[in-house]
């Protein structure tokens, strides 16, 4: 296994290979940074170019786009509160707060370093555990997915803000939004009121862009542009020893969790980033600074979503199963090259999967360099006066929302959720909790119902098996821990 990997590494570090990885990372980062263009769209746009390319250049380039896009999404999330991809939505919470304090550069560096470290960890795990992890992932059924979704929701109490009840209402509202459209199990129309464009539910990009970016623009206009500092002098505060001590354990933990979540079909980077943020907040000491500009709140979701690409490659390479849109495009890339990924590939042509793994490692290093080059130019965004920036953000949000469907209705949805988000904010409801509910809503509902179908209506299915019991314990601890720790600290202060 290791000899195959090192052989793959010799191919991966060839200059022409590094160039194709560089092209992929740059393209992915740009795509990821543009609202509405996610990893799968950026990869799909790159796919036709790979047709005439050699196998050793085509597939690493596509994988590098995936890696770059997951990082790129965090740049606008931190600087203008507009997540470039939905996976960067959780990064907004602390990243933008850091930027408001004039620490945008530090937030970008945290995002980059934690992303790269988690990416490297995920590649190492992929090399060692590819085959066993893929088969373990297959043991996950609807009940396990539902419990994982509930685990992600356990962070609601801590992103709720000043009023916990309003936080829970926001999360319930987010979960409710996810029910709009045709019910995927029975085909019943829910809250569509005969409007066919709502059949597939609300698209994730307009909802997130509206909730986070447009509502923020509205808040800034309403408040007369108060409270945004920005890195106007371009001085980047680098991470010191203390910062590294804080982010390293979180990054390593989120890297492992993100790799595992990436390996599960249908989970993806968005859910992974929220679960990692949630778990980091629960487990960290002095976690009251989360949501108010804490670098740990940037490191956790960024490590969580940057570990996903390598994780997602595990079932693709080992079993030939694409677990997401991005890996489905990668599978198309394999097919274009006449290669069928799966267990046979490891025995007949081991150099192909191991070269892919090695290229993923190279992609992380290339992303580090690209990211370091991009930090300072990215900060130029914060120098643009608000009177010009406002229009640019609104238009990026609009066109970003329009991208996936080519339908102005998506722009309308973004505008509606911008207004809803703004009203929620001025009334102390939590927009973050609503987004969390919306993102996890489909996963939780569909899998609870599928599990109930499998069990013939018995709730026992959620308490059966080792995985479920472990997940249940984590959920109970996650929900109770903030309450217990708040009581304990209140007692101590007395």
């Amino acid at each position, binding site marked *: 296994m290791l000899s195959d990997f090192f052989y793959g590494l010799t191919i991966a570090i060839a200059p022409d290979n590094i160039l194709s990885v560089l092209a992929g990372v740059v393209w992915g980062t740009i795509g990821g940074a543009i609202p509405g263009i996610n990893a799968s769209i*950026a990869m799909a746009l790159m796919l036709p170019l790979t047709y005439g390319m050699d196998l050793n250049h085509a597939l690493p380039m596509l994988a590098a786009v995936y890696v770059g896009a997951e990082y790129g999404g965090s740049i606008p999330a931190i600087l203008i509160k507009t997540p470039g991809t939905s996976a960067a939505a959780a990064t907004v919470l602390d990243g933008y707060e850091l930027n408001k304090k004039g620490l945008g550069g530090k937030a970008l560096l945290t995002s980059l370093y934690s992303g790269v470290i988690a990416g490297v960890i995920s590649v190492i795990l992929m090399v060692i555990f590819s085959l066993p992890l893929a088969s373990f992932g297959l043991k996950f059924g609807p009940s396990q997915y539902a419990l994982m979704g509930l685990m992600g929701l356990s962070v609601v109490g801590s992103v709720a803000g000043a009023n916990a009840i*309003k936080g829970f209402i926001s999360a*319930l509202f987010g979960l409710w939004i996810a*029910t709009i459209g045709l019910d995927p199990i*029975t085909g019943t129309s*829910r809250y569509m009121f005969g409007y066919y464009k709502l059949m597939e539910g609300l698209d994730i990009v307009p909802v997130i862009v509206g909730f986070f970016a447009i509502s923020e623009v*509205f808040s800034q*206009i309403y408040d007369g542009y108060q409270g945004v500092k920005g890195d106007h002098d371009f001085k980047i505060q680098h991470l010191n020893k203390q910062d590294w001590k804080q982010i390293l354990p979180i990054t390593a933990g989120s890297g492992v969790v993100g790799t595992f979540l990436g390996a599960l079909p249908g989970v993806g980077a968005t859910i992974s980033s929220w679960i990692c943020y949630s778990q980091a907040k629960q487990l960290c000491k002095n976690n009251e600074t989360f949501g108010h500009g804490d670098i740990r709140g940037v490191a956790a979701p960024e490590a969580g979503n940057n570990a996903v690409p390598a994780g997602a490659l595990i079932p693709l390479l080992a079993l030939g199963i694409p677990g997401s849109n991005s890996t489905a495009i990668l599978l198309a890339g394999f097919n274009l090259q006449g290669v069928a990924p799966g267990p046979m590939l490891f025995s007949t042509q081991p150099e192909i999967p191991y070269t892919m793994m090695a290229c993923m490692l190279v992609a992380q290093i290339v992303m580090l360099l690209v990211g370091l080059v991009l930090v300072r130019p990215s900060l130029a965004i914060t120098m643009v006066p608000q009177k010009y920036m406002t229009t640019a953000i609104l238009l990026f949000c609009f066109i970003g929302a329009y991208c996936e469907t080519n339908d102005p209705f998506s722009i309308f949805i973004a505008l509606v959720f911008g207004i809803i988000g703004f009203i929620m904010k001025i009334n102390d409801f939590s927009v973050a909790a609503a987004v969390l509910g919306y993102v996890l809503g489909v996963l939780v509902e569909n899998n609870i*119902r599928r599990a109930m179908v499998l069990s013939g209506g018995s709730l026992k299915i959620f308490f059966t098996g080792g995985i479920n019991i472990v997940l249940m314990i984590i959920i109970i601890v996650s929900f109770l821990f903030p309450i217990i720790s708040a009581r304990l600290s209140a007692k101590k202060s007395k």
Partner: protein
Amino acid sequence: MKKFLSATRISGIITMVFSAIAFVTATTFDSSAMLTNDPLGAAAWPLFLTGAMFLMGTILVIFGDKTTKVSQGNDDKSESSSKKQPVQLLVTIFAMIVYLLLFEVLGFLIVTPIFILIMTLYYGGKLKVAIIYAIVLTSVLYFLFKVAMGILLPPIPFI
């Protein structure tokens, strides 16, 4: 009465009304459609969510401002207390609606620079800078989305 109707209680009432409407709507969902062995059906989850939302709204109405942590709430308020600009916000929303309505009628390349120019001038930009900014930003958006990413933006009609 004024004291009783705090912002928190009004939020609670709105939540109750909204969730009650959504709850009643959910009771009309046809659960028997297509798959009969789905024990929960299409209505159960929305009913649970809206029911819980109604309950939370009721708590807000009963307990009012007691549900808010005082210190953090005050911090948040003090940050954004000065000079509210509701008119500027309403004009922005109105302009966005007009942009949305004209987006496909006039095409991206006509409606976008006009929107940028008007809004930049409205926010206090200088005319010359606003004109250059409208052209540059439209070009950047067009290049990124249409040329680089291949997104089909609405074309100028009759061309």
